[in-house]
């Protein structure tokens, strides 16, 4: 006879759901508005989404205050986990989304933004990502991951070009495979430990030692493959350049930031647990993954003839660079991961937004892709301001001080050095030097070649909203040095107090 389950509402701690609920209610609200009155202008939906995200951010900041006072809060039978890591990651997710959504206000009309569903899906996706990072329950992580991914596939397809459908289908297929791997991995861990919660699994694996090592290894391999796909680690990266090319530049920039930080947090929870529980070979495998992802992606990026594809490969390489933090596993390294990713989001969104403003509706004759390098030839003579902005983002991506990404890079290298990974630090440094070449290639085109037209091809898509976002990204990139100290302070306390 089963005991009746008595649950008091207070013990559910329903407040842990507020940030996600805000996004979900916002999405439902947008759908409702569309039901009541259709054919409203996209600017309404953009601003509504922005407001919803602002509320979301507000609740997160509130949670940050709760965390500093009371530490980690659990809710819903310990499924929800509001620790420093999850709050930080959610802030990055919501903040990155807030940088993205104004990019919808282009001067040219693009198909996807005229549907309110785009914005509803966008908010659902954010809620999915938030669930993903705010739990250490493998099932809830899975649900969050799938909610977010399915919404994202649709967002890509909405771009309504044959390449976008291709990209969406490719991403969907690969994503489905990854989801399968994830489910298998979770199943194996459940079989080994009888639990789907990461901390329980950790306890069981540590206690049983090497008895079940074969199963644990199988589970680890499945998880590695699953997150390899999600984080576009080489050799699971093949979808990335095509998907980035098929989606709009703004969405591609978004994809290189927000889904990945969600992935990183889960990987951090899962793999640092596995490393600490003494799973053999895992460190070596991760080491190899990190090195290959950085290096191979860099080398592929060298030979790209389209700027967007180049940036796609470069973001794979950056993901590999950041993955090193998981391997190193110290508090400093995990802090570096967040610092790097926050600085990276500004710079990379800026760079992709620069591509977005130069996006023509139709491809002109003789141009094979949206953003070939030649298109940017001699930009300094026709559009000096735009050229300098783009140059700035490229220099920052290359890791040139004192621009944004340098500080992340420096702190990450510092973490590698302090963590005893000297060779890794050297490999990371040399990779930055290789990467400098392809960023420089665009600078060479923009600053040192003769213009091929009088500049009418750039800024065709510009609007006040896009320019504001680019300006914001540029200011954040230039003056990042001021922000690094407070950021480090907050991130270090949050990461440290969550036990990472």
């Amino acid at each position, binding site marked *: 006879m089963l005991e009746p389950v008595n649950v008091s509402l207070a013990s559910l701690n329903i407040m842990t759901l507020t940030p996600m609920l805000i996004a979900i209610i916002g999405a439902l609200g947008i759908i409702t508005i569309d039901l009541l009155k259709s054919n409203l202008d996209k600017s309404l939906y953009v601003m509504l989404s922005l407001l919803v995200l602002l509320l979301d951010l507000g609740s997160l900041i509130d949670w940050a205050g709760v965390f500093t006072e009371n530490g980690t809060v659990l809710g819903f039978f310990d499924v929800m986990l509001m620790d420093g890591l999850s709050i930080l990651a959610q802030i990055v997710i919501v903040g990155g989304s807030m940088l993205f959504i104004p990019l919808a206000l282009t001067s040219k009309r693009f198909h996807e933004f005229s549907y309110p569903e785009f914005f509803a899906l966008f908010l659902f996706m954010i809620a999915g990502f938030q669930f993903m990072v705010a739990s250490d329950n493998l099932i809830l992580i899975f649900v969050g991951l799938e909610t977010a991914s399915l919404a994202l596939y649709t967002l890509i397809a909405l771009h309504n070009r044959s390449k976008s459908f291709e990209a969406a289908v490719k991403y969907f297929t690969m994503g489905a495979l990854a989801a399968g791997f994830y489910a298998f991995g979770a199943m194996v861990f459940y079989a080994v430990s009888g639990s789907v919660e990461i901390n329980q699994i950790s306890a069981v694996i540590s206690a049983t030692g090497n008895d079940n090592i074969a199963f644990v290894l199988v589970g680890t391999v499945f998880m590695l493959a699953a997150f390899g796909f999600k984080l576009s680690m080489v050799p699971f990266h093949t979808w990335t350049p095509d998907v980035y090319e098929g989606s709009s530049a703004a969405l591609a920039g978004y994809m290189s930031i927000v889904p990945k930080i969600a992935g990183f947090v889960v990987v951090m929870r899962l793999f640092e647990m596995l490393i600490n529980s003494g799973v053999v070979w895992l460190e070596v495998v991760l080491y190899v993954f990190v090195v290959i992802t950085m290096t191979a992606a860099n080398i592929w990026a060298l030979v790209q003839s389209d700027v967007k594809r180049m940036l796609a490969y470069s973001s794979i390489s950056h993901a590999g660079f950041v993955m090193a933090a998981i391997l190193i596993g110290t508090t400093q390294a995990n802090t570096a991961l967040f610092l790097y990713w926050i600085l990276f989001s500004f710079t990379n969104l800026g760079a992709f937004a620069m591509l977005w403003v130069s996006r023509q509706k139709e491809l002109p004759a003789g141009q094979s892709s949206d953003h070939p390098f030649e298109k940017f030839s001699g930009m*300094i003579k026709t559009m000096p301001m735009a050229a300098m902005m783009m140059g700035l983002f490229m*220099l920052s991506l*290359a890791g*040139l*001080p*004192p621009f944004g990404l*340098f*500080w992340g890079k*420096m*702190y990450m*290298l*510092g973490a590698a*050095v*302090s963590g005893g990974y*000297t060779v890794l*630090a*050297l490999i990371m*440094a*040399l990779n*930055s*030097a290789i990467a*400098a*070449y392809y960023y*420089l290639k665009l*600078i*060479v085109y923009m*600053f*040192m*070649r003769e213009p091929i037209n009088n500049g009418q091809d750039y800024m065709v898509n510009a609007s006040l909203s896009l320019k504001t976002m680019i300006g914001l990204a540029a200011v954040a990139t230039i003056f990042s*040095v001021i922000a*690094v*100290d407070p950021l*480090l*302070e907050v991130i*270090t306390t949050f990461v440290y107090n969550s036990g990472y």
Partner: protein
Amino acid sequence: MLDHILSILIFFPSVAAVLGFVVSKEGFRAYGITVATIEFALSLWLWYAYDAGVSGMQFMEEFSLIEQFGISYLLGIDGISLFIIVLSAFFTLLGIVSLTETRRVKELIITLLFLEMTMIGVFAALDAILFYVFWELSLVPMLYIIGAWGGPKRIYASVKFFLYTFAGSLVMLIGMLFMAYFYHEATGNWSFSILEWYRLILPESFQLWLFVAFFFGFAIKVPMFPFHTWLPYAHGQAPTIGSVILAAILLKMGTYAFVRFSLPLFPDASAFFMFPIAVIAIIMIVYTAMVAYAQEDVKQVVAYSSVSHMGVIILGTFALNVEGISGSIFLMIAHGVVSGALFLLVGVIYDRRHTKMMDQFGGLASVMPRYATVFGIMMMASVGMPLTINFVGEFLSLLGFYQQSHMLTLLAGLAIIVGAIYMLAAYKKMFFGEVTIDENKKLKDLNKTEYMGLIPLTIITIWLGIYPKPVLEPINNSVESIVQLMHDKAITEDAKAKIPNVREIKQGHTISHGEAH
């Protein structure tokens, strides 16, 4: 104002450059000259206010930038950096005054002003990360100058310049992070302040590794053999102004960094690597001198001779005694003045004939006598004739190294004679003999703009050649304290023996003086 004069020196040109975007194209040259003159005047004021009797850092400024990681905005100068800063301001002014470029002058001058900021920043920074920021940032304006105003293969040359230096610097960055990590392990605090690092005594094995890491960054910048291949390209393709700044100031960053970082931080490693580096320096002197002799392009001759002289500077630096290091720092300034002047001179003839091939010239002495005279003086200075500025530096550098090894010094001395051969040969090809090509008969002699650049350089060359004391004395004071620091910090017997104890020597002098009386 003197409390913040270094910050003003660093950021005045960059603020002026940003404001310069508004200034119209027509008056831009006047704007550039005014800004550079003010900057130069400020740097002279710095020299005036500098207390030559003090050996430590002066005009220090500090505030914390990234407290969590020990990075601060820490500035200060001593006798070593003072003159390079004055030289940077001087050459920027000179470069803008004698600018003959006509294409997009506004952009060029703005770039030069940004470059000036990074140059002065490198020499004034006492925080390793701040130093690194300026060090790396200096690549960007130079990349643009070479890449946008250079010769036909400018893009290859500029990208090669950038990537070489960038790759080397990243290895150096790892070294810096290691250094900070050791400091953290030793004291419990993060710090990137060089002055704090000076107090840290490292085991020899760590020193060796860190020395190598820093060496990559510095050696590529100098450029030392075998990392020198980017330099002839860069010089060959760069416009005159680019070559002048590159040779006069940017290369000095590498040798300066050796004195500022490698020697005092790693005295044992410096002593350990003294002979290998001396051998590289001598190869550099001899090999590049020979390559220079084989060149047909006069600018390449000057470029290779410049590498060759950098070898002497390295040799002097790694003598690890007061004479050698002071000599090498003096030679940095001398080399800046002389090679800067030579590149300007090459620019003069290039503007007239649009070729730099020596077989296109000949007999220019009869057509352009004044040009030939200035060229002659600078060439003599370059080969190290007594009573010119280079002689003082070369002599002291070699004197310093003579105390460490007679044989190697002798070899280096011979190499300087080879230097005389190629310079004289180049001079002969260009200026003596009959005028064989008709175009050369109608060449005009130096004009007013060119005089304005060349006369000050000629005066300095001879003045400091005859009376180097005003510059040498402050340098000497600061070098003495560095050498003393190295001696005190050294842990191996080898290093203790190689690095002299300045205090003892000085006391010995006073005692022997006392006895004489």
